[in-house]
């Protein structure tokens, strides 16, 4: 898995914004990660603790919000959520159409940080 390189990116972005805002310390980091991503939250926190040592982000807590997998039916415009364990069926539960587009589930961004 690629948590280490991802965590490096997270730290760089957080430090950049923290410095711009004159932070003394970063307290929390809110992440939004889609369910389709295989990233392991605990693993990111572990790497983060290691990489952030000696920076103003040391000790910051990562709060990860997983975005559900949501499809939109291109035929009847209905939107519906599926769970990863039920990915066998992506047909629309309303009209049973098979033409669907993924509208959520691939998110991968830093929402916000709290600083002091």
């Amino acid at each position, binding site marked *: 898995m690629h948590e280490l390189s991802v965590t490096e990116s997270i730290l760089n972005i957080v430090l950049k*914004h923290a410095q711009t805002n004159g932070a003394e310390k970063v307290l929390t980091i809110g992440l939004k990660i889609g369910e389709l991503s295989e990233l392991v939250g605990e693993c990111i926190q572990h790497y983060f603790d290691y990489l952030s040592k000696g920076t103003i982000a040391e000790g910051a807590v990562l709060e990860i919000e997983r975005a559900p997998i949501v499809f939109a039916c291109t035929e009847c415009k209905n939107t519906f959520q599926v769970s990863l364990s039920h990915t066998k069926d992506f047909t629309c539960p309303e009209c049973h159409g*098979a033409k669907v587009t993924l509208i959520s589930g691939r998110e991968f961004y830093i929402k916000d940080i*709290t600083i*002091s």
Partner: protein
Amino acid sequence: MADIRLIEIKEDILSDNKDLADEIRDALRRHKVFMLNLMASPGGGKTSLILQTIRQMKGAMRIAVIEGDIDSVVDAEKVVKEGIPAVQLKTGGFCHLDASMIKLAINEIDLTGLDLVIIENIGNLVCPAEFDTGAHKQAMILSVPEGDDKPLKYPMMFSICDVLVINKIDYLSIADFDMDAAKERVVKLNPGIKIIEVSCKTGQGIEEWTRWLEKEIKIYRNAPAS
């Protein structure tokens, strides 16, 4: 207690990688070079498909290959034997290739007069799906012995690819592989995907694959520079 402030960021975690990938695409565009990112499990047939592609297309096109592997240079050696320049990236344990690694490789390649660069990504159906390499099209291989359930297990990979090559169809008679079910699962994840059945061993379907690739290269070359 000092006051605590909430700062909205909304920044893509992989934005640096994406910016670098765009830089690579700009460099390729200046030379009208098309780049394909080829992904698959270990043993899916990435190197075999690349060798078949080279044999079919090298008369008409100038090709270079970027090989990603955790260790060893065996794949690059096979490509060089075909008279094609190859750059081997040894990732030393990394599970994917990202734009910064591809940039290093591109710097080693003379883009002048080149038509096509093929990236052979690390054998893995998970991580490579998340990193933009700067390639113009994403291709993946699913080989028959891996099973028709792979789209269910690795939905992300199947959903980001432009083309799926189903390789080792010469195994179909002895494998428990339901071709229709496999295709249906893939199309549900990714309705626009092109699916091509091949056997790198017998050569069956390779022509359809190279035709698809030639068509994509042509579309790319004729597209106005953005």
